[in-house]
């Protein structure tokens, strides 16, 4: 593999984002914001805790979908950005697999989760390991009874959509949701790392 993961993390973690004179951060084809992880965790936890037992799975699914859609559009913005072209594109030899590995290096560099692809069957399945992720911080409130890395789940599936789901569709009507992701291990549930398995939807 030609992707130098550490170099990408070193370079892309230096990218400083701050609101412009309008208080906005346009970039990668989207508007970006930087808020505390606790905010996103807090809403997810409160929402899931507010629904009856039989609706928890559905509520979690909606949180995953939000990340899935975000990961699809922002992921596309990332892999077509100037920053990508400068740092990652010169390393890409095998398409789309190298792009996928590069995208997870950026995913890591930006603080979403320290993730790495550990198994990939092109066009079929992918297993991602996360050694650290902000969504596991719910552990501060006691061990979770269910995995709660909804954002990582959604983004893992979205990256497979981008790699193997056909041409990017800005409307999200095709390509998006070609794959789905299940979290099979979680730091928040007591495992040493998080594990995410992506398969065809």
């Amino acid at each position: 593999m030609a992707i130098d993961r550490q170099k990408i993390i070193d370079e892309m973690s230096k990218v400083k984002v701050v609101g412009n004179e309008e208080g906005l951060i346009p970039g990668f084809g989207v508007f970006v914001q930087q808020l505390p992880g606790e905010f996103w965790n807090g809403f997810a936890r409160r929402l899931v805790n507010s629904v009856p037992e039989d609706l928890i799975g559905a509520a979690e699914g909606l949180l995953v979908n939000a990340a899935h859609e975000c990961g699809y559009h922002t992921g596309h913005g990332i892999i077509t950005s100037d920053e990508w072209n400068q740092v990652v594109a010169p390393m890409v030899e095998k398409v789309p697999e190298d792009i996928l590995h590069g995208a997870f290096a950026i995913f890591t560099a930006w603080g979403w989760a320290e993730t790495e692809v550990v198994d990939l069957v092109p066009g079929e399945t992918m297993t991602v390991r996360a050694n650290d992720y902000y969504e596991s911080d719910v552990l501060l409130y006691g061990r979770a009874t269910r995995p709660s890395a909804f954002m990582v789940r959604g983004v893992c599936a979205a990256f497979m959509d981008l790699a193997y789901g056909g041409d990017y569709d800005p409307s999200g009507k095709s390509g998006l949701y070609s794959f789905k992701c299940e979290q099979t291990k979680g730091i928040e549930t007591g495992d040493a790392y998080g594990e995410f398995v992506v398969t065809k939807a």
Partner: protein
Amino acid sequence: MPTETNAAFEIDHKFDAARKRHYLNGDCTVLHCHHYATLYTQLAMDATDFDGVRCLMETSEDVFFDVLSRYYTQKKIESIEDKIAVAQQYWQASGMGLLKFTGVGKYEVMAEMEYSHIDEGWLKKWGAADKPVNLITAGFVAACAALVNGKPPRTFEAKETKSLARGDEISAFKAIHK
């Protein structure tokens, strides 16, 4: 009213190379896009049976109350004018938009936005909204109202009274003492 001549919000950004996490003034922060923020907002608005709107606004109020409170303590920010100036700059630096407090009192706090991440994102994603959608900023305004008055969260109830996403020229927020 507060102006930019008041206290300047200092940005201390650090990247923890071991955990691969970013910290803004000590708080673990993450970059997310307008798709994520507006989908979370839509999710909250759809969750009517579970009071999703309140859930999102109170999360915002609680989290940003703590963030600003810690900053005020660390930097010894004490005057109302400085607290307001810092809050405005924090929201701007975070990419959430240009928030200006237009009236700050013991029982009522008002703010306006000419530019808003949530509204710009909503318009870009879905087009015009039929009602105000900036629940996150409403929670933030409630937190600020409590902080400048030396009160705990839930002291103020904030509402968005004008909305860029709905077609108004500005977004406007009013927080009223309960």
